[in-house]
């Protein structure tokens, strides 16, 4: 695929209050994706505040000076818009994908809550959304087999005190400690024009897009952009940190995790491709050797979790067959990792992994909302939104030697952490 296929126009402006605005016109469908990133995620939560960034994301929908609780969603949804927000380690993002005629309304709603939310927080709103978030935690983590894996994994890889050492859902106790005053304080610290990126993708002209953004957000006061201290990069793990969980799950699962470099560096990309060769898709080495040929495990999976603050996470997952242990699979997996480190990938394997990356990347870019989110990603985390158009090139340049080196240096068996999930005996008392 020629790289110029995915060459999306991206125009950038800085409002006087420090808000960065990106506009990328695409007239193919009469809709506009409004995407707003705030540079605040779970990594910004201090001890005792775990889960606050996500709880406060919920409060963003509970009303502001000129908008009633739930009205933001209700108004845009009734026009056919799709509205949502998510919280992650590195950011909180808000989406409003709306018919073009509703663009001004969407921007106004976002500006109203950015400008006035901190002064309009009620105890009632905090109490209700706290209950909703607790239900979300029960539904998505506590009542789901293996639901407690991610919190345990990040603590194992980074240590509980590290900014990435806890996940976005947080703890029930910390959620209980949140008050309207602490929420207001959090909003005033993090929700500011100078701590935000606004991206518009869709059926608009560039100048018009900037004008509408300025009109909606320009009156909000900015301050100097908070500078994050340069994040420390942790060295590879040592001493094989291990943890065991057990629960009423259908099969044993083991997770092998490594510290990778920060996202979208050449060595991260090389490790990402190494994980793909090992564990992504039907042709991957682990699937072929462990699942098909030796029938040691039911499934294997590989993933690189990209993060900006010094380190990312690399992950291999092995799920046992019913009533079977996963341990033989781990040994065989580590052999495969060592083999890749010793010999590197074949040219065919590397080309295949890149071809898969290309399709996934182009698929992401095909949706207005996902394209807007990627533009915001590269604007905020990398200060380079146009990199969206260069990512395919960057990935295509990674060589087999780089993949081999990344496997040897970053995915060494002795540099892993290991989380084993055991099947709890039905008759055991807990």
């Amino acid at each position, binding site marked *: 695929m020629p790289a110029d296929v995915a060459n999306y126009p991206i125009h950038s402006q800085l409002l006087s209050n420090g808000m960065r605005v990106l506009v990328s016109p695409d007239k193919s469908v009469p809709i506009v994706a409004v995407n707003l990133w705030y540079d605040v995620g779970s990594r910004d939560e201090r001890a005792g505040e775990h889960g606050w960034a996500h709880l406060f994301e919920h409060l963003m929908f509970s009303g502001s000076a000129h908008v009633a609780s*739930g009205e933001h969603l209700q108004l845009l949804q009734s026009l*056919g818009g799709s509205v949502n927000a998510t919280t992650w380690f590195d950011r909180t993002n808000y989406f409003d994908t709306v018919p073009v005629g509703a663009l001004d309304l969407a921007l106004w709603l976002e500006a109203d809550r950015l400008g006035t939310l901190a002064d309009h927080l009620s105890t009632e709103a905090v109490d209700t959304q706290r209950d909703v978030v*607790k239900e979300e935690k029960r*539904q998505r983590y506590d009542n*789901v087999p293996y639901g407690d894996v991610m919190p345990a994994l990040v603590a194992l890889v980074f240590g509980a005190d590290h900014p990435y050492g806890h996940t976005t859902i947080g703890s029930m106790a910390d959620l209980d400690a949140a008050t309207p005053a602490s929420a207001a304080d959090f909003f005033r610290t993090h929700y500011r024009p100078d701590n935000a990126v606004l991206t518009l993708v869709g059926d608009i002209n560039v100048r018009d897009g900037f004008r509408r953004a300025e*009109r909606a957000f320009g009156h909000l006061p900015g301050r100097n952009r908070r500078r994050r201290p340069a994040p420390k990069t942790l060295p590879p793990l040592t001493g094989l940190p291990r943890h065991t969980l057990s629960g009423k799950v259908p099969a044993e699962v083991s997770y092998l995790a490594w510290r990778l470099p920060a996202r979208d560096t050449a060595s991260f990309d090389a490790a990402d491709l190494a994980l793909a060769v090992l564990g992504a898709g039907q042709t991957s080495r682990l699937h072929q050797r462990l699942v098909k040929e030796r029938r040691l495990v039911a499934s294997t999976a590989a993933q690189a979790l990209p993060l900006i603050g010094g380190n990312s996470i690399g992950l291999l997952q092995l799920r046992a067959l019913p009533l079977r242990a996963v341990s033989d699979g781990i040994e065989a997996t580590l052999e495969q990792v060592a083999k890749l480190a010793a010999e590197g990938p074949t040219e065919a394997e590397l080309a295949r992994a890149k071809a898969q990356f290309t*399709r996934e990347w182009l*698929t992401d870019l095909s949706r207005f909302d996902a394209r807007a989110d990627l533009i915001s990603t590269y604007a905020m985390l990398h200060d380079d939104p146009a990199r969206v158009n260069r990512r395919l090139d960057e990935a295509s340049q990674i060589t087999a030697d780089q993949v081999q080196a990344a496997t040897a240096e970053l995915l060494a068996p002795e540099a892993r952490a290991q989380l084993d999930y055991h099947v709890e005996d039905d008759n055991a008392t807990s």
Partner: protein
Amino acid sequence: MRRPEHRPEVGAPARWRFGEPDRLWLDNGLQVLVCHRPGQHVASVCLSVDIPLNAEPEQFEGVATIAQRCLDEGTAAHPGPSFAEALEDIGASLDGSVGYSASQLFLDVPMPRLGEALALLAEAVRTPELEAVEIERHCELRLAEIDHTLASSTRSAQLAFRKACLPKRFRASRMAAGSPESVAAITAAAVRRFHAQQYRPDATTLIITGDLGSGVLAAVEDAFADWSVPGDTSQEHQAPNRRRPHRWLIDRPGAVQADIRLGVFGIDRTDPRWADAQVAAHVVGGAFLSRLNRVLREERGFTYGVHLVNQPMRSGGLLAVQGSFRTEVVAEAVTLAAKLIDVRTNPITEAEVAEAVSYHLGSAPLRYSTAQGVTQHLAALVAAGLTAQFIDAHNLALAQVTATSATDALTELLPPDRLTLVAVGDAGALRGPLTDAGWPATEHRL
């Protein structure tokens, strides 16, 4: 200059119609739907074979699923893993789904490799190896998958509700991919026989969406024109009807929440009340501030989200309140939900209808904005035995919905004394409160 408190006006929605596919047939009966979507660099393809699951021999239920899962484990021209390699080499991905009325393969591939991908897709459905060792392996994996399904509260609830709403004689009352007993019985011969009988060009529709060039039809012909299978397809689709109401508790000891389904066997897209039902479902349980979500989530904080979902099948459907509630409030939540879906005393208003219709019409351009969105929606229509014309026809029908017609439809569809209830949670903790609240339920094992 606009003051910050001044709420902007909303511009009129742009005129939008679904860009209908070109529709044609190869001489062997294969239907082709081609949707040109400029700017969509990843083509999205669905190969949909009209296979009613009641065509599966009863002792081998799940054979359709196993047959489909083995299609990409090697073909005559690309034996063993070389088939998956050929697909992945060109950046393609291939997924499958087996529903009660169609077995569908979904293929995504960057536009320049579409021709090669279609040739591989044709190989998979026409000349799969179906090696005994792969069939046996996929049966083993399916058995493991059943354990995972039953371990999931949500999927158990879905399964139990289906079983509770449909009489046993209908295939759709049971798991599409088969039960532990039937999957264990599946043989290589059964899989090969099923594939030979059911995968046929005259039962197949090929949907292709993307930034397509003029060569796409030639590529389709190259891959599929000489596909012929003797005999004909004769298996009729079943038209299920409703079972008497049941109230079931599925025990998950120690669960912190219960997954609830409260509803009925409902209607499909061909029912004259479909548009009314869609509008009513949005008002009562579709919108963020729907009647259900406003009370149970935003006012009471009982749940992360609760919906009234219209899930159409080819014939009939499932219409149910779906939500997960913390154990302590389940009885109260069910009682409140039953009250909220009873629109006789609190009819749907014209304003609510207007919002729901505006939502459905306004969200269409977004729904169909990507190649995958177009292909997936068309695939759902094809599986239901409908054409792309349904999309515009449904939009016209939506515009005719009134407060009275929506209220009447929901009143008819959800009679309060005929509701089936499924609760998947800690039976010991739920039984008493549910009984006290007027919802006595019997324990049921899946």
